[in-house]
C-alpha cells in the first residue's frame, strides 16, 4: 500500500473561488492510502513546495497527488520538488482542478464535487505508479530551417553564428520569400531589397549554412535531438555547381510566355529563369511545365548557348537524408484567393489589384519598372481607392476571422508613397478600424492622413464595378458622416487577408506539430513559450505562427534561434521514461504496434519460450527501443492482445482512474 500525500492548491482565487479547497482536502484525506492531506494558497511557491517536501519526509510518503493547475503548467515543478525530497519524480500525479474544473464551473458545489472526483482518480492512479528512471539520448548538432524567407534567413543566420550547422529548405528556386517582393518597408521606408539582399548573401556565404533551394521536406522521422528528415531536391535541370548565373539562357529561351510568379503574373518570363536579379542561389531553373525541350524533345537552345555547360535535361529529383537535432518552421504566408469576393471585381478588371501586386507595380524591378501605371492601359491613375480588411476580420465565412495585422500599415505606406511621388493623385482608404500598435506606427499613419492628405474614410466598400469609360465605380459608405459615396476610381487596391502557406498543413502532419483552425502553428504556450511548438524540438519562426510584420518576424526568428541554440548546446537530452514496453508473454508478434509507431521504436525478435506443457517454442515478440520511444501510446491502443503498455500511463492505471471517477 502506498503512503499518499494530497496537496490541494488554491491558486490564489483561481481555484479557491469556485472550489471549496478545504472540503476537497478533507474528503480526499479519507481515501485509501492517503496519510496526509492539506491545502495551501500557492502550492507552486517556495513555501508551498516546502510543505510538500516536509510532508514527504515526515510521513514517509511514497506517492503524492497535487490538485492544482494543468500538468502542462507545473508537473515538472512538482516532480522536481519530489525529487528534492528524495521521492522518485514519477510518483507524483497531478489532478487538474483548475483548467478542467474551477475555470469551467460557476457553481461551487458542483466544482467541489468534481474536484474531489478528479482527486480520487489521481489517488487511484498513484496507487499503481512505479518509480521510473529517465535515460539520456544524444543530440544531433545540426538544425533544419523550413522556409527561406526573412524569418528562415534570420533564424538560420543566428543559429549559424552560434557555431551550429544549419540547412535551409526553400521550395522556390531562391530564398528571400515575400520580403524580396516588397518595395519599401514601414515605418522607416527603407527599401526591402537594400536590407534583405545583404542578409541573403550572408546566408549564401556562411560556412555553417547550406541552402537546399527548389527543395521540399518529404518525410520526417525521429524526435527532439534526433530527427531524420528526407528532403526532395526537385530537378531544376541546371547543375547548380556549374551555373554562373550569367542569365544568358534566360534572355535567349524562345518560350517567352510564362507568367512570372515573382511579379504575380503581371508580366512574363522565359521557361528557363532566374526569379530576380538578387536571387540566392543565383542559378537558372528550367520550368518543366513550359520547356519545349522537356515537353517535346525539340529545342535545346539553352544547352547550346550555356558556356558553363550547366544545362542537364536528364536531371531527376534527388532525395537527401539528413539528421537534425532541431527543426524550425518558417513557412510564411500568402494572400488569400479572392474567389469569394466578387463584389470587388478583382477577376473582371485588371485595375483591381491586391496590395502585393501594387507593391510589385511600385517596385523599380517590377513589371512597370516602378512607374505607377494602370495595368489595363498603362496610364497614370489619378484616383486610387484602397480597401482594407478584404477577407480579414470576416465572420461571414468568406474570409478569415482574424486580423491580418500588416494591412493597415502597408496601406498607409502605399497611400503615403503614392501621394509623395504623384501629388496629383487622389487617394482614398476605406477602413473598419485603423490598427497601428507598434513603435512609430501610429505616427506613420497620422503622417499619411495629416501631412500627405490621404482621405481616410471609416466604412466598407460595398461594390466595385468596371464602367464603360474604363473607370471603376466604387460604391461605399462613410459611417462617420453617414452617407453613401460613389467614387470613380482609376485603380482599386485590395488589402487582401493573409493566410499560412498551403504547404504548412501537410508539414504539420509530418512534424506532429499542432495547428489552429486557421492553419497557423500553435505555440507551446501563447505567452511563455511563443516560439516553440508543443512538439519537442519543433520551433516556430515568422508568419507560420500568426500574422506579423517584418520587425516582429525578425525578433521572433531570433528568439526561435536562441531556443534552438539552447537545445543544440546540450550534448544529451534527458529522455522521457514514460515509454512503452511489451509484455512478451502476451505479445502475438503481429506487427500492429510496429506499423503505428511514428518513431520507428519497435522491432521484433524471435525468442525461445518455455511453454506451459514443458515444450520450448520460438515466438516473435516486440521489443521497444526506449531511447527512441516518445511515449505517445499509439502502440498500446493498436495492440490487439494488450501486451503493449505505457510506463506511467499503464492500461491498469487508466482503468483505475476511470473506475474511481465512475464509482
Amino acid at each position, binding site marked *: 500500500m502506498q503512503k499518499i500525500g494530497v496537496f490541494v492548491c488554491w491558486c490564489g482565487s483561481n481555484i479557491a473561488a469556485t472550489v471549496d479547497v478545504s472540503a476537497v482536502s478533507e474528503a480526499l484525506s479519507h481515501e485509501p492510502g492517503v496519510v496526509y492531506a492539506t491545502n495551501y494558497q500557492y502550492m507552486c511557491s517556495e513555501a508551498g513546495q516546502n510543505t510538500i517536501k516536509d510532508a514527504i519526509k515526515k510521513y514517509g510518503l511514497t506517492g503524492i497527488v497535487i490538485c492544482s493547475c494543468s500538468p502542462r503548467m507545473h508537473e515538472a515543478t512538482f516532480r522536481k520538488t519530489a525529487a528534492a525530497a528524495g521521492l522518485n519524480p514519477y510518483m507524483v500525479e497531478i489532478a487538474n482542478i483548475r483548467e478542467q474544473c474551477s475555470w469551467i464551473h460557476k457553481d461551487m458545489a458542483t466544482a467541489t464535487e468534481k474536484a474531489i472526483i478528479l482527486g480520487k482518480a489521481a489517488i487511484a492512479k498513484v496507487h499503481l505508479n512505479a518509480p521510473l528512471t529517465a535515460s539520456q539520448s544524444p543530440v544531433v548538432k545540426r538544425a533544419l530551417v523550413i522556409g527561406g524567407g526573412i524569418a528562415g534567413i534570420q533564424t538560420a543566420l543566428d543559429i549559424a553564428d552560434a557555431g551550429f550547422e544549419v540547412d535551409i529548405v526553400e521550395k522556390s528556386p531562391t530564398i528571400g520569400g515575400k520580403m524580396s517582393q516588397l518595395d519599401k518597408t514601414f515605418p522607416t521606408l527603407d527599401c526591402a531589397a537594400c536590407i534583405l539582399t545583404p542578409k541573403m548573401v550572408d546566408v549564401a556565404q556562411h560556412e555553417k549554412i547550406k541552402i537546399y533551394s527548389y527543395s521540399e521536406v518529404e518525410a520526417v522521422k525521429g524526435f527532439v535531438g534526433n530527427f531524420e528528415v528526407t528532403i526532395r531536391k526537385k530537378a531544376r535541370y541546371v547543375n547548380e555547381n556549374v551555373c554562373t548565373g550569367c542569365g544568358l539562357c534566360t534572355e535567349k529561351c524562345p518560350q517567352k510566355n510564362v507568367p512570372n510568379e515573382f511579379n504575380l503574373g503581371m508580366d512574363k518570363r522565359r521557361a528557363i529563369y532566374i526569379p530576380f536579379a538578387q536571387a540566392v542561389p543565383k542559378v537558372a531553373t528550367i520550368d518543366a511545365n513550359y520547356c519545349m525541350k522537356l515537353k517535346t524533345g525539340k529545342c535545346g537552345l539553352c544547352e547550346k548557348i550555356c558556356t558553363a555547360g550547366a544545362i542537364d535535361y536528364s536531371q531527376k529529383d534527388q532525395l537527401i537524408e539528413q539528421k537534425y537535432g532541431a527543426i524550425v518552421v518558417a513557412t510564411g504566408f500568402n494572400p488569400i484567393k479572392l474567389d469569394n469576393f466578387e463584389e470587388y471585381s478583382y477577376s473582371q478588371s485588371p485595375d483591381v489589384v491586391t496590395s502585393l501586386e501594387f507593391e510589385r507595380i511600385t517596385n523599380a524591378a517590377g513589371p512597370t519598372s516602378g512607374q505607377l501605371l494602370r495595368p489595363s492601359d498603362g496610364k497614370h491613375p489619378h484616383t486610387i481607392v484602397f480597401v482594407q480588411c478584404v477577407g480579414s476580420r470576416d465572420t461571414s465565412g468568406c474570409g478569415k476571422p482574424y486580423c491580418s495585422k500588416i494591412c493597415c500599415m502597408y496601406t498607409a505606406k502605399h497611400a503615403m508613397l503614392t501621394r509623395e511621388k504623384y501629388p496629383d493623385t487622389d487617394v482614398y482608404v476605406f477602413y473598419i478600424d485603423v490598427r497601428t500598435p507598434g513603435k512609430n506606427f501610429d505616427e506613420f499613419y497620422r503622417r499619411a492622413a495629416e501631412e500627405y492628405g490621404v482621405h481616410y474614410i471609416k466604412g466598407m466598400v460595398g461594390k466595385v464595378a468596371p464602367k464603360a469609360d474604363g473607370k471603376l465605380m466604387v460604391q461605399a459608405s462613410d459611417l462617420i458622416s453617414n452617407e453613401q459615396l460613389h467614387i470613380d476610381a482609376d485603380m482599386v487596391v485590395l488589402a487582401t487577408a493573409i493566410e499560412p502557406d498551403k504547404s504548412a498543413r501537410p508539414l504539420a502532419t509530418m512534424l506532429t506539430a499542432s495547428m489552429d483552425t486557421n492553419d497557423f502553428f500553435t505555440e507551446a504556450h501563447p505567452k511563455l513559450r511563443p516560439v516553440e511548438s508543443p512538439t519537442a524540438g519543433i520551433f516556430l519562426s515568422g508568419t507560420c505562427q500568426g500574422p506579423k510584420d517584418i520587425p516582429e518576424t525578425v525578433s521572433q526568428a531570433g528568439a526561435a534561434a536562441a531556443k534552438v541554440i539552447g537545445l543544440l548546446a546540450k550534448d544529451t537530452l534527458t529522455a522521457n521514461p514514460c515509454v512503452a514496453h511489451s509484455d512478451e508473454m502476451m505479445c502475438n508478434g503481429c506487427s500492429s504496434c510496429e506499423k503505428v509507431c511514428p518513431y520507428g521504436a519497435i522491432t521484433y525478435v524471435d525468442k525461445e519460450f518455455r511453454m506451459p506443457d514443458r515444450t520450448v517454442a520460438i515466438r516473435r515478440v516486440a521489443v521497444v527501443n526506449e531511447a527512441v520511444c516518445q511515449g505517445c501510446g499509439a502502440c498500446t491502443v493498436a495492440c490487439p*492482445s494488450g501486451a503493449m503498455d505505457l510506463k506511467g500511463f499503464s492500461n491498469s492505471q487508466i482503468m483505475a482512474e476511470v473506475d474511481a471517477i465512475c464509482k
Partner: protein
Amino acid sequence: MQRIMAEKAKELLQNGTVNRVLGWKKGEFVYDITPAVFNNTEEIDAEFVYDDFCANNLSKYLIKESRKEGKVLVFLKPCDTYSFNQLLKEHRIWRDHVYAVGIPCDGKIDLDCLKKQDIQGIVGIETQNDNFIIHTLYGDHTIAKEDALAERCLNCKSKKHVIYDELIGRDGEVLDSHRFDMVEKIEAMTPDERFAFWRGEFSRCIRCNACRNVCPACSCENCVFDNPKSGIANKAAADSFEENMFHIIRAFHVAGRCTDCGECSRVCPQNIPLHLLNRKFIKDINEFYGTYQAGEDTESRAPLNIYNTEDVEPSIVYKKGGNH
C-alpha cells in the same frame, strides 16, 4: 473432389513434400465434421473426408501446426485463404512450414436448415444440380441448395483463392455479395430498437467461448478474457448487460482483422448472429477509409493501423447515429 484431394494428399506425403495433412474427418455422425491431422496415407484412406458438411476453417490450426517440425499440407476453401493470409500478415503462421492447396467450394450446409425441414437421421449427402439429396435412415430428401446452405455461403464474398501453393480446380472471382443487407437493416433501426435487438440476441449467450475459440482473429497468445491481470478474466458479470459486453469487446478486438469467415456464427450453439457485429465494423471501415478486405493480401496497411489526412473525423459517429 474428396478422392482427388485424398490422392493429392497421399502423393505429397509419399514424395516427402509434407509430413502430415490438415483436413477433415467424420465425427460420430457424417455431418459432425471435425478438423484432423493425418500423419500417413493409411490414415487418409481410413478417415479423410471432404463433402458439403466440411465447413470448418482450418487456417487457425496452422498457428500451432506450422510451428512443428516439417511441412504440413492444408486444404483451404476460398474464404479460408483470407484467414490464412491475414494470419500470415500478422506473422502468426510460419509460411515455409505450410503447403497450401486451394480447393473449390460451392457453399456448405447449415445443419439448422436441415433441422428446420425436419430432416433427421442423416447418413449421407449428394449433390444433384441445384439440389442436395440427403440420405437419411428414413429415406432420401431432396432439398434446394438455397434452402440448405449457410447464410455466409448464400452471401459468399469471394470464390477466389488469395493465396495457395497449388490449386485443385479453377479459381473463382470476388463476388458482389449482399452480405451487408442485414447490417443496413439494423443501422436503420432507432437506437432503442437496436439496443433491444442485440439485448435479445445476446440474452441467449451461455459464454461457452466457442466463437472465440474458433475465430482465426481471436488467436492471442493470452486472451484478455483468460488473463488474470486484465481484471475481467473469470469474473462473474455484475449484471446481464456486462455479460453482453463480451461479444462487443470481442468485435472490437478483431475489428480491421476479421475477414468475415463467419465461423463465429456457425459454431454458436445459441444461433446468435455474431457475424453481424463484425460486418458492421467491416462496413464502417469500408465507408470511412475506403474498401478494405482483411486477408486480401499480406502487404497493405490495415485502415485501423494507418493514419491519413483524409481519414474521417471522429464526429462521423454523430452523423451516422441511425434514426433517432
